[in-house]
């Protein structure tokens, strides 16, 4: 079932929470439209701070608001937020330990044909290397709703990243959710997909193709990249014939390399494939076209899976 874009769910949930809690403050950098926060601005004008197109200032102001007791959500396109304002994220949020939630909207290649200036295929890698910063990438409306609810009173710096495409329902509404604990969506003995964010849906659809050929696959939605749920990862890959990681991010420094690092250090040898964007001058197109081109169509993922274990 296709639901709403995670971005829309984020904006709806945040507005409903903020109506009940005047300490929730949203900070935007001319990004309220992109962040679906136009209604928020209209309904709660005293709870939105607009800094204009100035991401460094946005992050600094978030830190200051947090320092005087506000529950702060800094919302800006992930591409600009995590590159332009990286030093502010590092020093003013993470190192100074202000429990701000930074929301990187339209992440990965969500901006499609707008091109590489607007894509954020670096954000997981750069933020993983910053101490005291947690990273969550929800896959569907449920995970989005839950992470935003958790973020309001979260006691540590947090970065949340998502795209703007309507998402398939992956989880039941009765699923439990906790930052730092991945979710096993499916269980099967042949192969394990570890995916994060919008690519969970693609892995899910790949598994549906594989199931027609009688392959049984595990799917883990690794929504939290940091702190990484190593226990679930190790438990999920036990006795499997192969592992495929899928992320809308560079192959460098993302989910796949995190998993690879664990495997090597635990001396686990298995068939293993990282699916992400290679280090090259990337092809242009819609988000879907680009993901498909770089092996992330369900069909190609299923083919790669078969090649890996057969």
């Amino acid at each position, binding site marked *: 079932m296709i639901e709403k874009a995670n971005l829309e769910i984020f904006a709806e949930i945040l507005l409903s929470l903020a109506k009940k809690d005047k300490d929730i*403050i949203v900070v935007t950098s001319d990004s309220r439209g992109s962040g679906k926060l136009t209604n928020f601005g209209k309904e709660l004008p005293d709870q939105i701070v607009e800094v204009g197109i100035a991401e460094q200032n946005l*992050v600094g102001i978030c830190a200051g608001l947090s*320092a005087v*007791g506000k529950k702060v959500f800094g919302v800006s396109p992930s591409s600009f937020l995590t590159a332009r304002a990286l030093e502010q994220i590092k020093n003013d949020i993470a190192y*100074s330990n202000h429990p701000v939630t930074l929301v990187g909207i339209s992440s990965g290649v969500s901006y499609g044909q707008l091109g590489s200036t607007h894509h954020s295929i670096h954000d997981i890698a750069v933020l993983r290397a910053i101490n005291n910063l947690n990273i969550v990438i929800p896959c569907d409306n449920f995970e989005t709703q839950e992470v935003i609810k958790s973020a309001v009173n979260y006691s540590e710096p947090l970065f949340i990243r998502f795209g703007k495409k309507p998402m398939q329902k992956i989880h039941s509404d009765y699923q439990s959710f906790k930052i730092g604990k991945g979710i096993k969506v499916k269980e099967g003995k042949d192969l394990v997909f570890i995916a994060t964010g919008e690519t969970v849906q693609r892995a899910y659809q790949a598994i549906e193709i594989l199931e027609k050929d009688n392959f049984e696959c595990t799917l883990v939605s690794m929504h939290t990249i940091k702190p990484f749920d190593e226990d679930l990862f190790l438990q999920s890959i036990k006795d499997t014939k192969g592992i495929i990681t899928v992320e809308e991010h560079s192959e460098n420094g993302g989910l796949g390399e995190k998993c690879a690092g664990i495997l090597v250090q635990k001396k686990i040898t298995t068939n293993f494939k990282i699916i992400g964007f290679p280090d090259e001058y990337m092809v242009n197109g819609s988000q879907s076209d680009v993901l498909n081109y770089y092996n992330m169509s369900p069909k190609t993922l299923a083919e790669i899976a078969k090649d890996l274990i057969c």
Partner: protein
Amino acid sequence: MNIKDLQLKSIEYRKTILEIIYNSGAGHTAGSLSCIDILNVLYNNILEINPSNFNSVDRNHYIQSKGHSVEALYTVLCDKGFYTRKELNTLNNFKSHFIGHPTRKIRGIEHNTGALGHGLSVAVGMAIGLKLDKKPYNVFTLLGDGELSEGSIWEGLMSANKYKLDNLIIIIDRNRLQITGKTEDVNPIEPLKEKFLSFGLAVQEVNGNSVKELEKIFKKIPFEENKTNLIIANTTKGSGISFIENEVVWHHKVPTETEFRDALKELEKQKLNFGND
């Protein structure tokens, strides 16, 4: 504290700055000496921040954006009872929390600074937050003049103006030198007052090494209703020690044993002559 006591404090503080830099073998000597009179007046007569109210949001706030002059801040906070001199003497030791830039691991310090151009936006956020809650507290931030080359400063100024932050006081330590040389040679920032006025701020100039003038200007806050306060504090880099004053090399030079003794002698002389003025 009356003006005479403040003046005596400044002499004491300069001695402490030199001692901790000399003993630890590192520090930003000249910048700490240039801003110490500002910190003296703020912490002794204006801010009312002390160890017992520090954990509360409901007080005035101070962010030192020019983080490298941390020895001045350590000195004043030590005097205000946030930690002992013995603790401060661990400066730069392995595993000591007293490092070369402000960190929240040290009680009394509100924000980790050191990378330049950050403190103003943080102070803006604090001032907006206090205003939203209609709290009657002020946020002070100290910027270096070399720091003004950072573009983020000008982003912060625009927000300060937009949100009419008359509870924000920006102090520029205008000592006219930075690590490479004169600010006007490295990257000219003048006409400074006109720049700030054009950004919608209420601007005052003061001799930033005169505790008397500083005290007078701080008492005039807010300068204008609905406008962010900005003070250009004209200072001398290395102020108080003749051979350190206005010498580029002293940006982060540590005194030799002879220089250290000569500097202390100068301060001792200032103290002895003090009563004779």
